[in-house]
């Protein structure tokens, strides 16, 4: 029940989050205080008594974005301006998404560019009421007459026009500020802050005094017979709801003379440099997110429809080389016997296979078990009891490597049980003299244990069946995972051996081999069972350890990889993206934070798109990962487990925050992140994932693998 309650809580939290985001969009628009706007010139006489809030909708085109309106004719953003063009006299019209009561002001800054078709260009800033849309109110700037016409619709059918002369010598390439104001059934018009029309004094027909509720609709800008550029369009409104009544009469009565209505500034807004920096950071985040989305899709589509490369699978007959299987074990009494027994049963020439069982300072009966096997098969099993030296798997492997007498060494963690053909399959790629490391596929064995193991089963399937094999297909960078794999000893030593200060010696080795001109090969058919964590706490520790190790490798080798001349562009690109995988979680969190901050800093248009993009990562980005997992289950031929796919969302959230935490803490503790210390006192320790049973189902603990990782 607790699990279900936690699940419901998460779902509700997610819904609340999205509701909050939508609510924020509305509240934000309503939160602009009137006092914060530029004071109106003295000539404006419209005043209201109790404006608790005002709403402004403004579209500046400097960010290259159209409002969500619709229109016809040719409209485009040129150099930060919305340019409308009507080359044939059909009129280009752009409607703005707005419906409001009668207290509203339209404003634009417009420049006439040129005429077309022999007729002088016109620009319209108009709106209509919702009953008789054939009549319009607003301003028409006419180049031919060197005038601005004021249209005032009355009684839903009469339209009063007044023409105001403008400077004929500057009508083109001159900016005009046009404002048109409705308030309580009255109309005022301004051209360049000059009050050119007031219905109270100029109208020849009595105004309707807003006896009925008037709703204005379809505010629009239009260009006729030529081209014009709009710097911005603003709709400034006073809400009827301010009076607590929805009738037009109530709004009209709210308009008194003791407080002036505020006009917004007509000047383009200047962004603070901090806002600009934040915006560029957010653009960068969006770019990275999109890159990884594409990456996931490329891998999945390649795996589903591309040519599958398994060039070494054919090798079933060969003069098999001498090989040493290294099995590092630290307190592995529950499982070491299983793996040794399985190794003795593999299909490989016995005289060419040596099993090096490494007991790394175990405090349980691991040493005794290994010795028993060594006595039983002295020709095949070599025990190595490591009682001193640096801690950590890499250090144990380094010491063990000194004892390896063959050029090929395979590494199996103690809780992995190989099948009979696995050793041959993993050795086969080493006939290629360019191969430095080989990686097989690990398959979770304890899937049935709990929801976590089932989610990890899906995640592993996506990571190996799709990710790793796609990298193999694309000749990119398949990753050596530290177990169910092997390395060419000469190659490894040529690039420096196992790096003891690394928290992910497998990833570290992959990249050093790559930089040294050696390839890592992934063998999808070389499968081996593993035990995955059954507790969320274990999973958290595991993924945080992976994140630290991976990021450490990224910091160390990303620039070397960029400069490296032995690697092709596919390897460079994929290698860098693979290195950056664990950085994406904190980057994604940063993106969310930036989007919200910019939203409240008043970046309405830009932030709207950016927040949509960032939040859509949660759906689209995750969807790409979901797609990858779904493809993997399809390729594996499993059917029902795909139904658990929505729960992968939980795994994603856990990975997101734990990886981000690991990255921040690693950077905070180690500065540049190159230091590989993970112990409390700054030393490298065996940070093992807790395990609950062995392959026979008995209880136990201790596991030391970090292989089998996949993208978070």
């Amino acid at each position, binding site marked *: 029940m607790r699990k279900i309650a936690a*699940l419901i809580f998460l*779902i*509700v939290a*997610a*819904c609340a989050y999205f*509701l909050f985001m939508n609510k924020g969009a509305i509240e934000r628009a309503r939160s602009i205080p009137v006092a914060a706007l530029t004071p109106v010139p003295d000539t404006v006489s419209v005043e209201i008594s109790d404006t608790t809030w005002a709403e402004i909708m403004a579209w500046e085109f400097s960010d290259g974005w159209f409002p969500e309106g619709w229109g016809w004719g040719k409209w485009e953003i040129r150099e930060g301006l919305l340019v409308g063009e009507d080359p044939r006299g059909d009129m280009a019209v752009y409607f703005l998404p707005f419906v409001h009561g009668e207290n509203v002001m339209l404003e634009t800054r417009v420049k006439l560019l040129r005429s077309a078709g022999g007729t002088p260009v016109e620009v319209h800033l108009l709106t209509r009421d919702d009953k008789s849309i054939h009549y319009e109110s607003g301003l028409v700037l006419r180049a031919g007459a060197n005038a601005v016409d004021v249209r005032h619709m009355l009684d839903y059918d009469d339209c009063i026009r007044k023409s105001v002369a403008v400077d004929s010598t500057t009508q083109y390439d001159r900016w005009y500020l046009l404002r048109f104001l409705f308030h309580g059934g009255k109309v005022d018009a301004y051209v360049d802050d000059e009050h050119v029309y007031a219905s109270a004094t100029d109208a020849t027909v009595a105004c309707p005094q807003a006896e009925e509720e008037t709703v204005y609709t379809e505010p629009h800008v239009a260009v006729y017979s030529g081209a014009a550029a709009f710097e911005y369009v603003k709709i400034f409104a006073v809400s009827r709801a301010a009076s607590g009544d929805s009738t037009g009469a109530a709004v009209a009565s709210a308009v008194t003379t003791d407080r002036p209505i505020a006009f917004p500034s007509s000047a383009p807004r200047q962004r603070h440099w901090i806002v600009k920096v934040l915006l560029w950071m957010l653009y960068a985040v969006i770019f990275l997110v999109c890159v990884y989305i594409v990456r996931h899709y490329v891998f999945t589509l390649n795996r589903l429809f591309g040519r599958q*490369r398994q*060039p*070494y*699978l*054919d*090798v*079933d*007959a*060969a*003069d098999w080389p001498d090989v040493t299987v290294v099995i590092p074990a630290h307190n592995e009494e529950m499982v070491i016997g299983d793996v040794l027994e399985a190794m003795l049963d593999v*299909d490989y020439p016995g005289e060419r296979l040596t099993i090096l069982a490494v007991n790394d300072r175990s405090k349980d009966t691991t040493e005794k078990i290994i010795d028993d096997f060594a006595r039983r098969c002295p020709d095949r099993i070599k025990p190595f009891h490591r009682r001193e030296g640096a801690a950590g798997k890499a250090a144990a492997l380094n010491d063990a490597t000194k004892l390896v007498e063959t050029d090929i060494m395979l590494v199996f963690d103690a809780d992995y049980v*190989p*099948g*009979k*053909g*696995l050793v*041959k*399959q993993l050795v086969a790629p080493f*006939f*290629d*003299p*360019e191969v430095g490391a080989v990686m097989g596929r690990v*398959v*979770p064995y*304890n*899937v*049935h244990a709990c*929801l976590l193991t*089932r989610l990890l*089963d899906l995640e592993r*399937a996506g990571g190996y069946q799709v990710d790793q094999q796609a990298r193999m297909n694309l000749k990119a960078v398949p990753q050596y995972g530290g177990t169910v794999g092997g390395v*060419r000893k*000469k*190659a490894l*030593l*040529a690039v420096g051996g196992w790096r003891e200060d690394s928290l992910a010696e497998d990833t570290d080795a992959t990249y050093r081999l790559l930089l*040294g*001109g050696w390839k890592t090969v992934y063998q999808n*058919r070389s*499968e*081996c*069972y593993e035990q995955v964590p059954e507790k969320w706490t274990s999973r958290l520790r595991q993924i945080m350890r992976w994140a630290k190790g991976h990021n450490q490798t990224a910091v160390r080798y990303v620039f070397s990889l960029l400069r490296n*001349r*032995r690697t092709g562009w596919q390897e460079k690109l994929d290698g860098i993206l693979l290195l950056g995988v664990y950085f994406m979680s904190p980057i994604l969190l940063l993106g969310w934070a930036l989007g919200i901050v910019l939203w409240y800093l008043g970046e309405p248009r830009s932030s709207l798109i950016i927040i949509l993009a960032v939040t859509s990562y949660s759906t689209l980005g995750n969807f790409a990962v979901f797609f990858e997992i779904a493809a993997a289950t399809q390729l*594996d031929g*499993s*059917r*029902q*487990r795909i*139904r*658990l*796919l*929505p*729960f992968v969302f939980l795994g994603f959230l856990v990975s997101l925050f734990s990886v981000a935490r690991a990255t921040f803490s690693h950077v905070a503790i180690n500065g540049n992140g190159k230091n590989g210390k993970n112990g409390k006192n700054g030393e490298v320790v065996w940070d093992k994932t807790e395990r609950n049973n062995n392959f026979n189902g008995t209880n136990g603990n201790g596991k030391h693998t970090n292989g089998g990782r996949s993208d978070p």
Partner: protein
Amino acid sequence: MTLLMALVIFMAFTLSFAALPFVPSLVEWRRKRDDQPLKIVRRSEVDIRYFARGFRAFVETHFAGLLEASRKTGQEQEGVLEDGTGYVVVGKTEIPRFNDAEQRAKAARRLILSCDRLRLPEATMFLPEIYAVGSVRGGEGNIYRAVLTDEELLLDRESMTLRWVHGGRSVTARTKCILYGRVSADQFIRLERGCRFERLHAPRIEFCFESACVESGGTVGRESDVLKPRDLDRPVEVSAGRWRVEGRLEIKANKIVRADLVATGNARIEPGARIFGSIKSHKDVFVSREVEITGSVVAGRDVHIGRGCRVHGPVLAERAIYFEQGTVIGGAERKTTVGADYVYIAPGSTVHGTVWAHKRGWVISPGEVPENELPERLQKTKSEDEAIGHI
């Protein structure tokens, strides 16, 4: 309806909609209908004799007594297994007797087993499996589903196998046979010119002309100079016993190299050279005549092995492999693997071990391959390949 009620309904609807995908998840989580670990292949799945072994176990289980009785009495026996499969155990006649329906259709619909030798008529389709303790000699133009013999198997001209055949001693396919699936033998396989194949495995696989096989020895080895990295016309990076060349690699005639070779471009080995190591090219490997390579040959595209060459290790290409006459791959004591999508082997060549052609295998001299039988991509890039003397 009050605003509160509308809000509650809206929230309920929204939550229900959001929770909808989780319904099948919850059902699967609680019912655990698919919570077992994925099945993995715990033994080598490329064991070519897998089906033959399975069929032998089937024969021993169901027919051991019948075969023994047939051996003693020499009588033919017919019957039907519990699953409805008909069978005929051939006696001393060595020729299976078909019923009327089978004769009319020229198609055997029953398992055919023999405790001795077996002779099969021509132009007949054998839909079930065939087993013989002694040798099996098939007629021309037959079609076989699967054949298992403890001795020799002879497939006469233009025969076809659909799934697998295994000879306890040998398998011989006369000219223009088409061998789909797996062909294996415990001693040797002999394919005559014009045969097509997919997977072959035997200690010795001979590719012959129509009449008889040419005993090829892979005549290689001359007195040559040992090559140093500086002798190459391109910069060489030497590391861990490996020479790595950016771009095209060319080893001059009669030179000796004691290293593994890796080239990011094409690799060309001139006549008489000896490589004590392996060769890898990201593109094509072209090996001229009478070259010996002690290791493997691996190519990102094609491998062309010239006349009289000898390669001791695996030969793997991601597109096509061409063997000229007299090529010897592997050795009697050193079996190996040849694998590519397309494998064209000239008569007079020998492979010890496995040959695996994923899309098309053909016993034909590389120069005689019609253009429409070449790999699709190769047809488009033939001029490029010709430029490096490839075809």
